[in-house]
């Protein structure tokens, strides 16, 4: 990661890709009632790199599950490419998932431990309508995808995901996205459970992937320094609400909400000039 600080483009006029109005999620009722996501509005544009930043428990994962259509919002509406999202049937859901994909936080629990790596990647090819391709073509596609994330497919065939390291598994996840080429990628703290070394590589790959496929990335993190470094737009989430959002520079260099200020003060070197070769991506 030796390139210069990212140029942060203005996306306010780009076409809408995913947006929401008053999206709310409430778990339980009575005195066990938890408002995990509380009437949030958002607009994500095509090609935008959005970070959602918040402390643990602020409702980031809950929001991401709703965005993915894996759980239903208690209230509010989500729009996909400007139109109300319709995922009422299994068929419509499958169609929706061709457009939005995810990388989860914990690589160790993201894979079915009974399935070989080949199956995971083949499923992606099949989902993109490649069922009738020849064996060789499929093999080439999987090799290319693995190559993109610096893995050697030849060495992975007949292996199970758990035989890889956490960093390798997360890279395999990215290879999946490379094959699926979705419009939106939702990455829920994809680097928080891997070693510092893999962390930089994975972020690098995500950025490459965005440039390659031109997709929107919704990056969820608790690390505002990291968000500043990679994103165009940031949304700051506190107790299920977006307390502040806007272009990364504006929000982070000139924070308005007290919560944002606190998050920033927790990161040591935030006001110094970013030197990418020395950025400490660990910043816990």
């Amino acid at each position, binding site marked *: 990661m030796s390139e210069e600080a990212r140029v942060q483009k203005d996306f306010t006029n780009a076409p809408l890709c995913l947006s929401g109005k008053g999206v709310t999620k409430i778990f339980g009722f009575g005195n066990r009632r938890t408002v995990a996501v509380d009437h949030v509005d958002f607009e994500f544009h095509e090609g935008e790199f959005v970070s959602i930043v918040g402390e643990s428990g602020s409702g980031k994962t809950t929001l991401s*599950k709703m965005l*993915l259509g*894996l759980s239903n919002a208690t209230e509010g509406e989500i729009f996909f490419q400007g139109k109300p999202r319709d995922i009422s049937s*299994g068929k419509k*859901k*499958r169609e929706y*998932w*061709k457009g939005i*994909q*995810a990388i*989860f*936080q*914990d690589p160790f*629990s*993201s*894979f*079915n*431990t*009974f*399935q070989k790596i080949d199956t995971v990647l083949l*499923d*992606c090819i099949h*989902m993109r309508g490649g069922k009738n391709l020849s064996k060789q073509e499929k093999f080439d596609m999987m090799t290319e995808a693995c190559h993109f994330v610096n893995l050697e497919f030849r060495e992975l065939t007949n292996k199970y995901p758990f035989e890889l390291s956490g960093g390798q598994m997360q890279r395999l996840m990215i290879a999946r996205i490379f094959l699926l080429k979705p419009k939106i990628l939702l990455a829920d703290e994809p680097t928080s459970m891997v070693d510092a070394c893999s962390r930089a590589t994975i972020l690098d790959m995500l950025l490459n992937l965005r440039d390659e496929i031109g997709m929107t990335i919704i990056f969820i993190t608790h690390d505002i320094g990291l968000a500043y470094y990679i994103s165009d737009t940031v949304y700051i989430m506190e107790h299920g609400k977006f307390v502040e959002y806007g272009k990364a520079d504006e929000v982070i260099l000139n924070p308005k909400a007290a919560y944002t200020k606190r998050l920033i003060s927790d990161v040591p070197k935030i006001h110094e000039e970013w030197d990418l070769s020395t950025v400490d991506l660990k910043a816990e």
Partner: protein
Amino acid sequence: MKNTLRQVFHSSKFVGGFTIFVLILLTMIIYPLFNPGNPLQQIGVGTFAKPGTYVNLYDATKAPTETFRLEDAAEKRMANSLSEEDKVAMVEWFTAVEADISDLDTSDTDKMLEMWEQYYDPTVKPKGMIRAKINYYKRLDNALKELGSGDTVIIADKDETGALVETKKILDTDYVNTNAVANVKSLPLGTDNFGRDVLKELVSATGTSIRIGLIAGIVATLIGLTLGLLAGYVGGFLDDFIMFITNIFTVIPGFVLLILISYSLGQEQRGAAVVATVIGFTSWTWTCRSVRSQVISLRNRDHVNLSKLSGHSLFRIVLTDILPYIASYVVMAFILQVSSGILSEAQLSLLGLGPKTTEVPTLGLMMNWAMLYSAHTNGSWWAYFPVILTITLISFSLNLMNTGLDQVFNPTLRD
């Protein structure tokens, strides 16, 4: 997968249980090859023949003899004819004549006879002993003397005139080879009250009971697994509905339900397979509950979410992303269901509500027959004890397998 199997077969408990169970199954298969025929055939007239090898007396007298002079033959003969009552009476006599019986062992026939020779005197009339008793001792003394003397037994036939003519003399040194006797029947476990070969019946009953257990286990596991998967994965109204039914089945004790259904079916309808199905139908709730709770904790895991995102159908997700994770629990539950199915059949049959009695023997039916014909009060241990032992052994082996599996799959228990 392969690793798990290897681990399972490294668990000494599982291997122990598995070996016992396989040995039982092998016996089920091999024994009938050597002793074919209907296990319910009544070979004996009369009830409860003792275990042993039976030599046909008619054929034995006709078989060629060899002469052996065995030193202990007379003693064995006497020991064999001396009944427990005789021994008690002998001890009574010794006490009456004030002999020293402080270290007398009644099972030591030699010593008893030796003392008898020493202390018995027909002329002595111990005080307070009634005449009849004194005469009994005289007869006993004569009988003992006769046994020791080696009298010949003469076999005689009637000739044309009706007079008895000696045809054969049997000496106490005459032996026949059992191979030379046309009819020898070995009954290692004797016969039951109907005169059936208990061992043959037991082998056949064990087979039927294991089959009943397997059918019950399969039925219970299939119902429990299907309902548990549906309730856990689909959730919502279906979950409420299935749990409502499960709760009803849980609240009514399974055994009561079993009795009621078996009773209402009637004796004629109750074949072994029907009873097995009924047992399975009343015992699926436990599997359903545990499968449901496992599935609920699995359905929000990321690997399931990833599978959904990969566009897999509900059926495929349940089959490939849920089932493998609960397979070990299902197998363990199945083994327990088989074991409890066998016990349920035994309980049901003891109450007289088991499979109908004319077709096949089951372990429960054998217990029922033994109980009805008072085998336990008249000392015919062979009619019920081997049955209990077999049930115990099957349960033991299955539970041992289960414990072994539990240690492999829930490693917290591993020491």
